[in-house]
């Protein structure tokens, strides 16, 4: 009310009072308080006119008809609403007060082969809020103070639409009982805010096997759309805000781990307060996934990989931080350990990863810790390819077991202008194919490359490499596997489209590079591991896998075991196989006393091969692949370390430590980084 209004009102009242007083005192008693507007007052009111107007009766009847019409209209409409359309409205009333609450099913656990829980569940009290709470700054401030977060952070969380525009927003996970109690006792302060009991992933072993188990996250919009489109029977239909696997086993076995949501219908009032519970469909827990991973071996593998990388970084190569190791049962493809460095903690994804953490994981400086280098890292295989080159040479009659090679350290098979050094520039002297593998003599394999280059069908070489599985997926049951690359003439021509024609052509040098595993060749550690497993078993490569069995947590608790699958069978002459096997054992026991020192303390005989892959602008990638026992192989282990040094002895330690964990025979020989200068 403005002052002007008040003044106007007062003036009007004053004027009216004056007029009233004037009228009251200026008239005779009869005329007092009567407004004369010129009519003839009827007798009943003290006037003189006694003739009633003729029109009044008709008009009164008209008024009566109007009233009947009004009531009739209302009756008609009520008839149609309450009797004819009653079902429709009743349904709407029922819809109004019925809400379906979805009950989240606990996710299945992930266990190692001995039943140790790698990933479990724990209850987590979560504060959620309706999106419109953000419009009430006082409430946001109160909530922020209660939870102990800055108000701006709370606001950002409530505005975050990643869980769906309409859905409740997660404000804080894992809040204390005190917070829950306070919100419960002051509902009027926290309108639109509620507490939900959810389950969160729990990692009893910390970040152990992080790359294998992977991590979970809130279902993405793409996943939601995909699950809605899916027409598969029994396919999971996600809701916004669901937790789903985003990497590793969590992703690969999502449809096993994810349970079936339960539902409960409740009656609510307009504020959403539940007054009555009705029908309930119990949630079904997801199944447990039992892995082939052995937590003990895994721990040894991760500890060793981390320790060796740390040593190299301190003493030899300051940028060294990445590597991988895999241990596999060659008889069935079970992976007992798989580690990748640098690693990460899956725990930071619980309840949604913060932007800062995500950016750190993505930044160049952190060397992509989310990548599982054991299956996705692609490197030149370096000398580890030499056994396969030997098979190619033997099968295609490029040379045979008795062929002699003379290594002077400097090879000029394609003329002096394109001469190439052996890694041992002082020369190996006279070599055979077998000793070429043992001592990793490059000259032997330069000759093989040259032999293929000059043969009628040079690409038989690549064919052989592909036969052993290079350039194709091993089909391991983990997401993100790399395919690698076996280069050939066609590939080179099409790949280097910007180079001069002469540089795009396949040359003899490409073959000599390929024969020693350098140049354009790319392989993944798991590919090489499978190839060596094939050598160990005499040609059978089993599909590598991390799943051992699936155990249902509902009903009868039935168990489904993983049936090993043969990935491929390579047929090699047994004589060739034993030649290569001898060469690989020689690499362990004969190449250098110092290497032998680390394996003589093992009861089982070991066969293995090192490799040092040259990298442009970086220190080389170190490889070491070994399997044991040599005569009746059981386990194969591959290790790689990026940006290591001219010393595959570094990776050797990791491989040796994992073999030690597998056979219960730790390496007790002294490890000195200065020793690493010896090998390859």
């Amino acid at each position: 009310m403005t002052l002007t209004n008040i003044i106007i009102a007062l003036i009007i009242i004053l004027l009216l009072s004056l007029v009233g007083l004037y009228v009251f005192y200026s008239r005779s008693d009869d005329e007092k308080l009567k407004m004369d507007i010129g009519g003839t007052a009827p007798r009943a009111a003290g006037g003189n006119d006694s003739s009633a107007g003729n029109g009044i009766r008709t008009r009164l009847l008209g008024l009566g008809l109007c009233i009947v019409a009004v009531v009739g209209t209302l009756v008609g409409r009520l008839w149609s609403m309450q009797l004819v359309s009653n079902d429709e409205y009743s349904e709407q009333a029922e819809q109004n007060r019925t809400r379906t609450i979805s009950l989240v099913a606990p996710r299945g656990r992930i266990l190692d082969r001995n039943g140790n829980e790698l990933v479990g569940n724990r209850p987590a009290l979560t504060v959620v809020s309706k999106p419109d709470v953000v419009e009430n700054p006082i409430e946001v401030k109160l909530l922020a103070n209660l939870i102990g977060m800055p108000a701006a952070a709370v606001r950002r969380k409530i505005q975050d639409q990643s869980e769906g525009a309409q859905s409740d927003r997660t404000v804080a996970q894992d809040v204390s009982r005190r917070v829950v109690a306070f919100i419960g006792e002051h509902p009027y302060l926290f309108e639109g805010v509620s507490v939900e009991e959810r389950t969160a992933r729990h990692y009893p072993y910390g970040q152990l096997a992080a790359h294998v188990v992977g991590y979970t996250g809130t279902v993405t919009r793409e996943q939601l759309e995909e699950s809605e489109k899916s027409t598969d029977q029994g396919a999971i239909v996600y809701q916004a805000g669901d937790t789903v696997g985003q990497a590793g086993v969590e992703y690969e076995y999502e449809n096993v781990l994810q349970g079936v949501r339960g539902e409960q219908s409740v009656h609510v009032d307009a504020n959403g307060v539940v007054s009555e519970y009705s029908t309930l469909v119990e949630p079904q827990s997801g199944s447990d996934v039992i892995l082939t991973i052995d937590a003990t071996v895994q721990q040894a593998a991760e500890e060793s990989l981390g320790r060796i990388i740390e040593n190299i970084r301190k003493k030899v190569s300051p940028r060294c931080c990445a590597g991988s190791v895999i241990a596999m049962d060659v008889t069935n493809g079970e992976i007992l350990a798989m580690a990748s460095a640098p690693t990460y903690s899956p725990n930071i994804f619980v309840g949604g990863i913060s932007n800062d953490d995500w950016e750190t994981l993505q930044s160049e400086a952190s060397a992509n810790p989310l990548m599982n280098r054991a299956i996705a890292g692609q490197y030149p295989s370096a000398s580890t390819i030499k056994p396969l080159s030997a098979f190619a040479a033997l099968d295609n009659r490029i040379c045979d077991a008795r062929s002699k090679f003379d290594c002077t350290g400097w090879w000029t098979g394609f003329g002096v202008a394109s001469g190439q050094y052996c890694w041992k520039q002082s020369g190996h002297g006279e070599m055979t194919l077998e000793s070429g593998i043992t001592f990793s003599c490059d000259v032997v394999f330069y000759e093989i490359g040259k032999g293929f280059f000059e043969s009628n069908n040079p690409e038989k070489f690549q064919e052989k490499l592909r036969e052993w599985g290079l350039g194709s997926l091993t089909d391991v049951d983990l997401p993100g596997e790399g395919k690698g690359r076996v280069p050939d003439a066609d590939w080179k021509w099409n790949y280097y489209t910007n180079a001069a024609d002469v540089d795009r052509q396949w040359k003899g040098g490409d073959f000599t590079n390929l024969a020693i595993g350098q140049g354009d060749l790319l392989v993944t550690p798991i590919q090489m591991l499978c190839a060596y497993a094939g050598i160990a078993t005499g040609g059978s490569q089993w599909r590598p896998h991390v799943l051992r069995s699936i155990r249902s947590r509902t009903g009868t608790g039935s168990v489904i075991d993983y049936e090993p699958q043969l990935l491929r069978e390579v047929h090699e002459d047994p004589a060739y196989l034993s030649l290569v096997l001898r060469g690989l054992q020689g690499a362990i026991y004969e190449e250098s006393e110092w290497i032998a020192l680390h394996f003589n303390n093992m009861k089982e005989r070991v066969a293995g091969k090192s490799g040092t892959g040259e990298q442009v602008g970086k220190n080389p990638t170190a490889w070491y692949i070994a399997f044991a026992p040599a005569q009746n192989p059981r386990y194969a282990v591959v290790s790689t370390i990026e940006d290591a040094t001219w010393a595959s002895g570094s990776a050797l330690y990791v491989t040796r430590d994992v073999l030690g964990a597998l056979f219960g025979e730790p390496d007790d020989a002294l490890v000195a980084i200065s020793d690493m200068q010896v090998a390859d």
Partner: protein
Amino acid sequence: MAVEQGIREGEMRGIFDGLLDKFGFALARMGGAGLQRKGPLGSVYLMQLIPNVLIVVFGTIVMWSASLTMVDASFPRHLGGIAIGFACAALVWAYDYRVFSGKSTLLLIIDIVLMLLPSVPGLGYNAMGMTGWVQVPLIGLRAQPSELAKPVTILLMASLTAEYNGRIETLRDYLKLCGVLCVPFVLILTQPDLGTGLIVLVLGASIIVCGGANSRWVLVTVGIIVVGAIVVVASSMTEGLPSILKQYQINRLVVFVDPSVDPTGNGYNLQQAKIAVGSGGLFGKGIGNASQAGGGFLPEAHTDFVFALLAEEFGFVGSMLLLFLFGWMILATVGLALRVESTFGKLVLVGVASMWAFQLLQNVGMCIGIMPITGIPLPFVSFGSSSMISQMVSAGLVQSVWHYRTKAG
């Protein structure tokens, strides 16, 4: 041709008049049976009193059920309103209404003062979006004076119109009456309270029309009002032109035309009211079982949307009973108007009857989607003592007309 048509028109009119006569006879019997009645209850008009009491009882039951779930619906306060209202009605009944016929100036002044009370500093109470309220200083009692202005306006318009004794013969006289009616109407609009304003307009117009106004003038006036309303609405809804209506009023109109436009705001209220009424079915959900009202989905279930609550709890049977009682009460009032001798008495009854009819149409109609949403209470049922007292006083006027039906002035 022309002659033939004229005859046919005449026949038609004859048939129509015949029907109207029968209707009038029925109404008059309803209102006038025993006009000369004597005895202990001779001074009480039972034909209006009985349905009125039943409506109040029915409303009391509904309000009691509302008080079970709604904190705002205070049952004792409702009973208090009925008690005060009944006392006022008894006073009015005992008083000779004809006295007012000679007090038109006083009535106009009272009317104006009532309308202006909410604008007086220290008295006006405009909290929480409510307009037109007065809070008595020190006591803290709140009231809506515009409610009380309704019976005053009835008396004012009836006393002025009665002076013409059923023959408003010059346009000048007609315009004078319309002009007086505009005073309370415009004052209410400034509060602003469009709902009560419309009631005052309708009851005043009914008195003027029944008071013998030339039908041509009436039609022209209706035309002007319709055109004016269209201009006001169009101007308010057009960007750049002055907005006379408030935004919420525009919203209500938009929602009335298409309820799906805004299912959470005004459209939500309308939708919830319709669901409440429709889901009541034949016998209703029973007292205290109204999920729409009890669950809080139906807003203002004890005031503006009280009919929806009633229809949900008592179903079609209950709403028919209410409409029957209202129809009975209003038609009995018109019937009495047909029979009483005094023009002033007739017109007072016309005012009261048209007020009840319009409020019934507006309040029930808005719950079932045939009228736009306005804050008009359902007489004798809605929670609110100002309305209850004002309606009881109006009923008292009807009783007073009966009471002093025969005595010459």
